[in-house]
C-alpha cells in the first residue's frame, strides 16, 4: 500500500488529508495483501476504514459494506438483524434526498447499540467502520442528506473469512456449517463442508484441526470442537444415508487421469466430476484412500467411514482402478488413451532413514512405520512380539505404538529425540497413548541397531539435550557425549518421516523436482514443467496433513478445468498479514462448558481396533455448535 489518505484500522486513526487533526499518525502500521491494497481506492473491513485515493466515494462504500454485512447477519438476535436493516433504511432515505439532520446521530446510536448488545462476535464487531466513516467523512454524508451528492455507481468486491476458516488449509466455512448443525440442518451442513472437504468423516476424525487453535473461544473458555462437529455432520449422513451427491447435471467429453487415490486425488476427482469431466483414478494399492486408508489405524478411522466417502465419489461416476500402478508417468501414453490432463497425486509412502548404524541391513524385526501401518491396514497378519520401540514423535509414530498395544505386544515404548513440548503429534493422541500404558522416552535417539543372526535384539541409543532453536523454531536436540546405553528389544519401528517414491522420473518426460525430491509445480496452477501434467499433495509439499492434500486436490481441479477451457487460473484472495482475531468491540461473552465426546474404556482396547472416540450425539452436536461466536470477518473494497 503506497499512500494512505485515511485509516481507522483497529481504531488507530491515520489522517493525511489536508487541514485535518495534526495529532493523527501519518503511516499505517499494517500491510494489506495486494487485493485490498495496490490499485484499490478504499477498503472497508470489520476492523476499520482505509482510504487510499482521496477522491474515493466513502459514502457509497459504506452503503455497499452494509449490504454485504446484512447478508452475514444470521438474524437470530434482534439488535444485529434489525439494526443493520434500519441503518440501510436510513442511508437509503439519505440517498433519495429524504434524510434529516438527526440521521447521522441516529446512525451513531444504532452502531453503538448493536456493537454493545449483539449476541455474537459478528454483531459486536461488524459496524465499527460505519462509525469511522460518518466521523471521518461527515461532510460527504451531510452533502448526501442535502441532496448535493450523487452516489457513485461502482462495482464493489467483497471477501469473507474468519480466524478458523483462515487457519484451515482448505478454508472450510466453519462458522457456516456449525450454524447449520446448531439449527438441526445436518444435511445442509455436510453439503457446505463437502464444497471444500470431500472426506468429512475422515477429516472429522483425524484432522490435526489448526482451526481449533485459531478459535476465538480458546481465549474465553475452550476452543470449539470443530473437528468433532464436522464428524457429527458426516456421521449423520452415514446413519441416515441422506447424501445428496449424484451424477453431475451436465457431462463433458474430456477425460482426466488421476494417479493416486488419496485425499488429493479423491478431492480433485470429486470436483472435476461435479463439473462433468470423465475422471479415472489409478490406484497402486488394493484400496483407495491413500494415507487415510493405509496410514491410519482403524481405531482412529474405521474402514467403513472412509469406504462410505469413497462410495459417494464413485456414485457420481468416478472410475477407480485399484492395483494399477502407473510405473512411468508419461503424458504421451495417457494422451493416446484419450486423457487430456493428468494429476499426479502419488503421496509420500516411503519411510526416511533414522541415521542409525545397521538400518540398511534388512534385519528381521526392523520395519518402517509407514510400511508397518500399510501392511496392517491391508490385512497382513502381524505376530506380536515382546518388546517394541517406535522411533519418532509424530502421529505416525503414535499410530504405530498404539497399534502394537492393540496387537498384543507386551511392552511398547516410543523413543523421541526432543521433549514433550516439541512433539508434533496431536496432544489427544499422546495422552491416549499414555493411558494405554505406552512409555514415551524423551530426549534420546538410536545410534545403532543391535542384531544377532539377522534378527533385531535391541538398540543402542544416546541421550540428547535441547540446544538453540532450529529453522522450525523448535530447540535442536544435541547428543550428550558418553551417554550411550542399550535397550533389549525384538522389534524396532522407525517412524520419523516420509518421502515420495520417485517412479515418475523414470518416464519419458523430464520432471523438474525440488531439492526434497518432490514435484516442482507452479504455485498458482499446480502444473509441473510438463504441460498438462499437474501435481499436488504430499508429492509436492512433502508429508503434510490430510486436509492440506485435500485442499491441493480442490485447487488442482479448478486449475485443470481452467486449463481444459483455455483460461488462466485466478489467484485466491489472501488475508495474510491481517490479524483476524483483532476486534474492536468486545462485548461480554458468557462462558459455556464444552461438550466432551466419550472415549472407549482403556481395558477394551487390547486386542481390538474398535474406534476409540465416540463422537457426538445429535443433541450434543447441537449444544456444542451453539457455542460458536460466528467471528466472520468482512472486507468490501473498490
Amino acid at each position, binding site marked *: 500500500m503506497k499512500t494512505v489518505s485515511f485509516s481507522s484500522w483497529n481504531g488507530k486513526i491515520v489522517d493525511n488529508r489536508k487541514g485535518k487533526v495534526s495529532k493523527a499518525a501519518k503511516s499505517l502500521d499494517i500491510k494489506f495483501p495486494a487485493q485490498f491494497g495496490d490499485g484499490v481506492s478504499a477498503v472497508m473491513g470489520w476492523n476499520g476504514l482505509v482510504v487510499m485515493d482521496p477522491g474515493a466515494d466513502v459514502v457509497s462504500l459504506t452503503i455497499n459494506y452494509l449490504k454485504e454485512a446484512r447478508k452475514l447477519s*444470521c438474524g*437470530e*438476535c434482534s439488535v444485529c438483524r434489525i439494526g443493520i436493516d434500519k441503518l440501510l433504511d436510513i442511508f437509503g432515505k439519505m440517498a433519495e434526498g429524504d434524510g434529516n439532520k438527526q440521521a447521522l446521530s441516529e446512525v451513531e446510536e444504532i452502531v453503538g447499540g448493536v456493537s454493545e*448488545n449483539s449476541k455474537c462476535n459478528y454483531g459486536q464487531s461488524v459496524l465499527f467502520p460505519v462509525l469511522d466513516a460518518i466521523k471521518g467523512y461527515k461532510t460527504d454524508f451531510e452533502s448526501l442528506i442535502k441532496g448535493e451528492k450523487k452516489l457513485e455507481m461502482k462495482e464493489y468486491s467483497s471477501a469473507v473469512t474468519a480466524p478458523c476458516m483462515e487457519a484451515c488449509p482448505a478454508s472450510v466455512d466453519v462458522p*457456516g456449517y456449525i450454524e447449520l448443525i446448531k*439449527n*438441526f440442518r445436518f444435511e445442509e451442513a455436510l453439503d457446505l463442508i463437502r464444497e471444500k472437504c470431500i472426506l468429512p468423516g475422515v477429516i472429522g476424525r483425524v484432522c490435526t484441526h489448526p482451526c481449533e487453535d485459531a478459535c476465538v473461544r480458546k481465549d474465553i473458555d475452550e476452543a470449539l470442537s470443530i473437528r468433532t462437529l464436522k464428524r457429527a455432520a458426516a456421521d449423520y449422513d452415514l446413519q441416515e444415508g441422506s447424501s445428496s451427491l449424484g451424477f453431475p447435471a451436465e457431462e463433458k467429453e474430456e477425460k482426466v487421469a488421476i494417479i493416486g487415490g488419496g485425499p488429493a486425488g479423491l478431492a480433485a476427482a470429486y470436483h472435476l466430476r461435479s463439473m462433468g469431466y470423465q475422471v479415472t483414478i489409478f490406484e497402486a494399492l488394493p484400496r483407495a484412500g491413500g494415507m487415510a486408508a493405509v496410514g491410519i489405524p482403524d481405531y482412529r478411522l474405521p474402514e467403513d467411514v472412509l469406504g462410505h466417502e469413497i462410495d459417494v465419489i464413485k456414485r457420481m461416476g468416478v472410475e477407480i482402478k485399484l492395483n494399477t500402478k502407473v510405473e512411468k508417468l508419461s503424458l504421451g501414453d495417457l494422451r493416446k488413451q484419450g486423457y487430456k490432463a493428468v494429476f499426479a497425486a502419488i503421496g509420500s509412502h516411503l519411510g526416511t532413514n533414522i541415521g542409525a548404524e545397521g538400518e540398511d541391513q534388512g534385519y528381521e524385526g526392523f520395519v518402517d512405520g509407514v510400511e508397518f501401518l500399510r501392511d496392517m491396514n491391508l490385512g497382513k497378519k502381524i505376530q506380536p512380539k515382546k518388546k517394541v520401540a517406535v522411533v519418532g514423535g509424530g502421529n505416525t509414530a503414535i499410530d504405530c505404538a498404539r497399534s502394537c498395544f492393540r496387537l498384543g505386544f507386551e511392552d511398547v515404548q516410543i523413543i523421541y529425540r526432543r521433549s514433550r513440548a516439541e512433539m508434533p503429534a496431536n496432544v489427544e493422541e499422546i495422552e491416549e497413548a499414555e493411558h494405554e500404558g505406552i512409555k514415551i522416552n524423551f530426549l534420546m535417539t538410536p545410534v545403532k541397531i543391535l542384531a544377532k543372526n539377522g534378527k533385531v535384539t535391541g538398540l543402542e541409543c544416546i541421550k540428547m539435550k535441547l540446544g538453540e532453536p532450529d529453522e522450525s523454531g523448535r530447540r535442536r536436540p544435541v547428543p550428550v557425549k558418553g551417554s550411550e546405553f542399550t535397550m533389549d528389544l525384538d522389534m524396532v519401528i522407525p517412524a520419523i518421516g516420509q518421502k515420495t517414491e520417485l517412479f515418475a522420473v523414470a518416464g519419458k518426460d523430464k520432471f523438474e523436482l525440488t531439492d526434497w525430491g518432490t514435484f516442482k509445480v507452479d504455485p498458482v496452477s499446480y502444473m509441473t514443467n510438463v504441460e498438462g501434467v499437474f501435481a499436488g499433495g504430499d508429492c509436492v509439499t512433502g508429508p503434510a496433513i490430510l486436509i492440506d492434500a485435500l485442499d491441493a486436490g480442490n485447487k488442482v481441479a479448478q486449475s485443470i478445468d481452467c486449463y481444459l477451457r483455455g483460461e488462466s487460473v485466478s489467484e485466491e484472495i489472501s488475508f495474510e498479514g491481517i490479524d483476524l482475531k483483532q476486534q474492536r468491540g468486545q*462485548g461480554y461473552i458468557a462462558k459455556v462448558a464444552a461438550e466432551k465426546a466419550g472415549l472407549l474404556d482403556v481395558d477394551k482396547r487390547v486386542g481390538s481396533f474398535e474406534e476409540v472416540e465416540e463422537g457426538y450425539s445429535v443433541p450434543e452436536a*447441537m449444544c456444542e455448535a451453539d457455542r460458536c461466536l460466528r467471528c466472520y470477518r468482512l472486507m468490501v473494497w473498490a
Partner: protein
Amino acid sequence: MVNMVIDGRKIKVKEDSTILENLKDLNIAVPTLCYHEELSSFGACRLCTVEIKANGKWKLAASCETVVENGMEVKTDSKKVQESRKFAAQLLYYKYPTTTVVRDVALKLGVDVSDAKAGDNDCILCGLCVRACEEVVEVCALTFRDRGLGRDIDEPEIEFDPNRCIGCGSCAYVCPTGYVKMEEAEGKRVIWDKVFKMVACDVCGRYFAPKDQLEYISQTTGVPMSKLSTCVTCK
C-alpha cells in the same frame, strides 16, 4: 453456592443458574420476549440485558444467557441498562410495529408507540417454538433458516417440516405474539397449514389429540395405540 452482588445486595445463588433465573427469584422485573423457564435460553430479543462487571469493566450482557460466577456484580436498573433495553425494544417496534406484545413492551420501556396499526401479529423470530419442538416434544419440525456466507436468503425465517410435525400444538402454546395459529373444527386440527385428523376419546367422545401425535407417543414409549385412545379427563 456462589456469591454475587445484584443491585448492591449481596446474595448467595445456585451454581450454574443464570442471572435471569435469580432475578426472577428476587422478584426483580425483567422484560423478556424470547424466554421460557422450561426451555433453554436463546438471547434473541436482547430485552433482558443487565450490566455485569467482567475483568474490572462494566459490560452489557443478556441475563438469560449468562451463568453466574463467583464474585459477579450485576446492575439491573442502571441508566445504561434502561437505555439498552429501550434500544432493543425500539428496534423490535421498528420491525414489528403492529405486533401487540412488541408494542406493549416497547411502551413500557419508554418507546414512543403510535396508536395506529395494532393487532397484526408477526413472527419476531424469538425461537420459542423451535426450542419447544426440539427440547420438549423432541421432534424438530421447526428449524431456523439463518442468513450467512453464501446463503442467499433475504430474511431469516422459521421453517416448518410437515413430515416431522405431529400436530401437538406446543409451538402455538409458547408463541408470545400469537403468530403461530392453531385451529380446530369437526375432528380436524390445522397448524402451520397442515391438517391433522383428531382422535375422539373412547369414553366421552371428545376430540382430544391428533392421530399423528398419539402414534408418535406410541412409537417412542412402546404403549400400544389401543391404550392411548382415552382422554386425560376420562382416564
